[in-house]
């Protein structure tokens, strides 16, 4: 097995493009090492991106935040400005695994692992985050929800990898939230996850909203009907009821060891209501 730690994006792309056989990106390694240990993958090469200049930085960009692909979730949690603009995203990133895991894991890795139950992904999708992808044909940008195509599968082509995630400039009177359901209080995998980002106008009426669901379909869902249930309302009980119904009806879960179809469908609506209340409060709305 070959290990490489390039210092530039270009050399990383070249190595990735040239690799014969299975070449895996290593950032925090919290998914890769587990897979290797359990025998699920045996990579021919590992490409460590932590040495690449800029990939461990959180930087201001056009009023938003660019988060390097090798920034750990714990570092996101300790960053002042990021957490006050996007508390839902930062909280989601710091629900992953345990404290020790959070010290290593990254949101780009969480995204590329392409688990339907990833915690940070619904929050990023709700926030309208975009991913910057480097590859043999240069750099491209795409919305986060375009990355995962199914469990364990992504739209990244040969030689491509994510170098950063951009959270857009936070609009006035806006707020985000992410909630997940797990049977325990920590160190678990979401049975259902829900991310909500909403903006209020000066009268406290919801002007725009994005609602996402995790662990209830092969990929994270961006639920337009759920957003529409909030837009034009004061996010009152009636709107929350419509939101829950829209989320439950959008959910397409399976029965597995972590939950039933019935449970996940119902809890999608429950979490959406609870997350919407938090997002509304963060947007400055009255409770």
């Amino acid at each position, binding site marked *: 097995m070959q290990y490489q730690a390039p210092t530039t994006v270009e050399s990383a792309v070249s190595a990735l493009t040239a690799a014969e056989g299975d070449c895996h990106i290593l950032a925090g390694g919290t998914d890769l090492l587990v897979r290797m240990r359990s025998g699920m993958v045996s990579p021919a090469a590992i490409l460590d991106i932590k040495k690449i200049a800029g990939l461990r930085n959180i930087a201001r960009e056009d009023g938003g935040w660019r988060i390097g692909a090798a920034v750990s979730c714990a570092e996101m949690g300790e960053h002042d400005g990021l957490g006050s603009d996007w508390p839902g995203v930062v909280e989601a990133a710091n629900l992953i695994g345990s404290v020790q895991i959070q010290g290593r894991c990254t949101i780009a890795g969480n995204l590329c692992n392409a688990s339907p139950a990833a915690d940070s992904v619904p929050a990023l999708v709700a926030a309208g985050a975009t991913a910057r992808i480097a590859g043999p044909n240069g750099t491209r940008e795409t919305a986060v929800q375009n990355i995962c195509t199914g469990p364990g599968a992504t739209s990244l082509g040969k030689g491509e990898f994510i170098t950063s995630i951009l959270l857009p400039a936070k609009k006035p009177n806006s707020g985000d939230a992410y909630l997940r*359901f797990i*049977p*325990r*209080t*920590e*160190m*678990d*995998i979401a*049975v259902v996850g829900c991310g909500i980002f909403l903006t209020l106008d000066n009268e406290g009426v919801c002007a725009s909203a994005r609602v996402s669901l995790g662990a209830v379909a092969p990929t994270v869902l961006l639920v337009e009907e759920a957003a529409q249930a909030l837009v034009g309302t004061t996010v009152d009980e009636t709107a929350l009821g419509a939101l829950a119904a829209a989320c439950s009806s959008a959910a397409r879960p399976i029965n*597995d*060891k*972590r*939950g*039933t179809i*019935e*449970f996940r469908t*119902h*809890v999608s609506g*429950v979490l959406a209501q609870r997350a919407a209340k938090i997002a509304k409060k963060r947007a400055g709305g009255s409770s």
Partner: protein
Amino acid sequence: MALDNNPALDTHEFRLVGTRPNRPDGIDKVTGRARYGADISAPGMLTGMVLRSRHAHARIKSIDISAAEAIPGVHAVITRKDFTHVPEDGDIADILDNCMAGEKALYDGHAVAAVAASSSATAQEALKAIIVDYEVLPNVTDVDTAIREGAPILHAGRSDGTVPEGASRNIMSRVEFGHGDVEAGLAKADRVVERSFKTEATHQGYIEPHACLAQMGQDGQADLWCCTQGHYMVRNTCAALLGMDQGQLRVTASEIGGGFGGKTTVFLEPLALVLSRKSSRPVKMVMSRAEVLRATGPTASSSMDVRIGMTKDGRITGAHAELRYQGGAYPGSPVQLGAMAGFAPYDLENVKTVGWDIVTNRPKQAAYRAPGAPMAAFGVESVIDELARGFGLDPIEVRLKNAAREGTRSSYGPTYPAIGLEATLQAAKDHPHWSAPLGKNQGRGVACGFWFNFGGDTCVSLNITPDGTATVTEGNPDIGGSRAAMSMMAAEELGIPYEKVRTVITDTGSLGQNEVTDGSRVTFAVGLATIKAARAAKKEMCKRVAKIWGIDEDAVEWREGAVHPAGPNAGLHPPMTLAEIAAVASNTGGPIAGHHEVTAEGAGVSFATHMVDSEVDADTGAVKIVRYTVFQDAGKAVHPDYVEGQLQGGAVQGIGWALNEEYIYGEDGILQNPGFLDYRVPVASDLPMIDTVILEIPNPGHPYGVRGVGETSIVPPLAAVANSVSAAANVRLTDIPMSPPKVLAKIRETV
């Protein structure tokens, strides 16, 4: 000589017993210096690994090991054919078949071959090169499905004479306990409640996976180092499996990272011995977590019908339970113990329990803390709770009204001596927890539990060193603080400081037979033997001093760590301390030691009452435990920290079992959750502080009044939590674990 050598109960003020000194293994464990099973190595050792069946039920048509054997670095490949000795004893034959499958693979994870190689990578490569030709058979993993007509049959002709004609061939045996006329009793009740219950199998969840190192020569002498609750058991079992003399196999127990009953049998040890015999090299084997969950022994899953009648003032008039336990692919589920324990807390005129031992395509169950009792208590205590609440009666009052006490004929036969159940109930009733207000969506539950406790074969040697310190040598792996307890009891007897005694757990070559560390027996039985060994040493020291003083042995007495003249007629000799006697031992007859060998009786049954508050999220079915108090009789708490730890640990394991731990099998009979991510043991943040109240009703069978405390604490929690959740959710929960999807479904079906 005046020596209190055959004790009535010792009720004097203790100097050390009941205090909380530092544990002797503490620094080793927190610094990582303690040597566990996987920390043992030997020069030239090989890595052993096991090939396990991925089928729940399959006939093994053939196994081709030739390609694996040809791989460079592979020193031995074994299958069942390498176990050339055929054990006569049926239980031993089952253990052999469980350690290495014979005609059939009977569960997902069943060992079918093993290899020893120069590295783990080579061993893994060898496992992949073994070709097993399976004929896959239909499987059954559910206890109720297993006894339905048409269910796949695991073994034909294994049912014993207790099983009625025409019953399912997956039923291995039937047991029955009780007395009186249940139907007549039920007829006198104002209300009869009948409920069916199910509990899923749970694993002991010890952190340390099984590990061992075996070295066996062509001369038939062997040494084995392993992580176990009983290395004498390992010796005897492996000797029986391999047809060896017990004396030729010396077993040394490592430090142990948890057992809870799961390390009271063998899995890897016989394989490592045979691999070592075949390769002529030491062989080390360490299980992965997935192997632990798939192929060691969880406890039984159960299905139960419980029927109890009660008068409106709370008197139980008749009680009946039918218990069906599956214990995996071999006979031996703990249904008998469950059938004995379920109604044991109560004084009942009419009671009957029937138990059925059933086999399924799951791993062979192993003991788990009070084996069989938590499930039976869940059914019984749930129905008592429902009756009490239905009549508007206080559930503690109802239990007090029916409580077993001294002289009660127990539901399983014997009549009780002095017992502590009423004391635990009274303490629960008087505790501030019982009257504390409940918050929104919260409910409070109580339940009682019983465990037998055990004594058994025990052998202890106590040696006085020339400098006047003492070494206690015993043969029971320390899983709950027993080294501290032995040192305390020896120091108490000898009148020397705790720090002057070291307790070591020796290998099988150094002492006579010792029963496994099980049945909550060690502080009781090994403690009893330690005290008696110390008394024997004291007697010897009295003899030595009498010799020095030139007077009769009767004219000296032991007092406060020294030998004194027994009275004025003995002469004016200054007392001789233990250290002074030890210093001159070479001149008075040689080394001084005491020893004691016994099959300990009089362990003393144990009772507990648990009280728990839970909060239910009615929208998600999530349950949070918000307050928990354990009330248990310890006889005499030698080291209260350890006693509290046992009470808290049992409660927490019970909470895990009640709420989220479970073996999940697919239709294909494959275990879906062989890891700690989806086999959900509670984490610290899931739990409140577990409060404990230790009661001390002395056990007349032990010189200091000690009773075992290790197991009773896991008996009430399933029921106590279920009663609490049922109160909070306002619906009766009868299916364990009460995981959120199940609780939510139950809430939604009733609104």
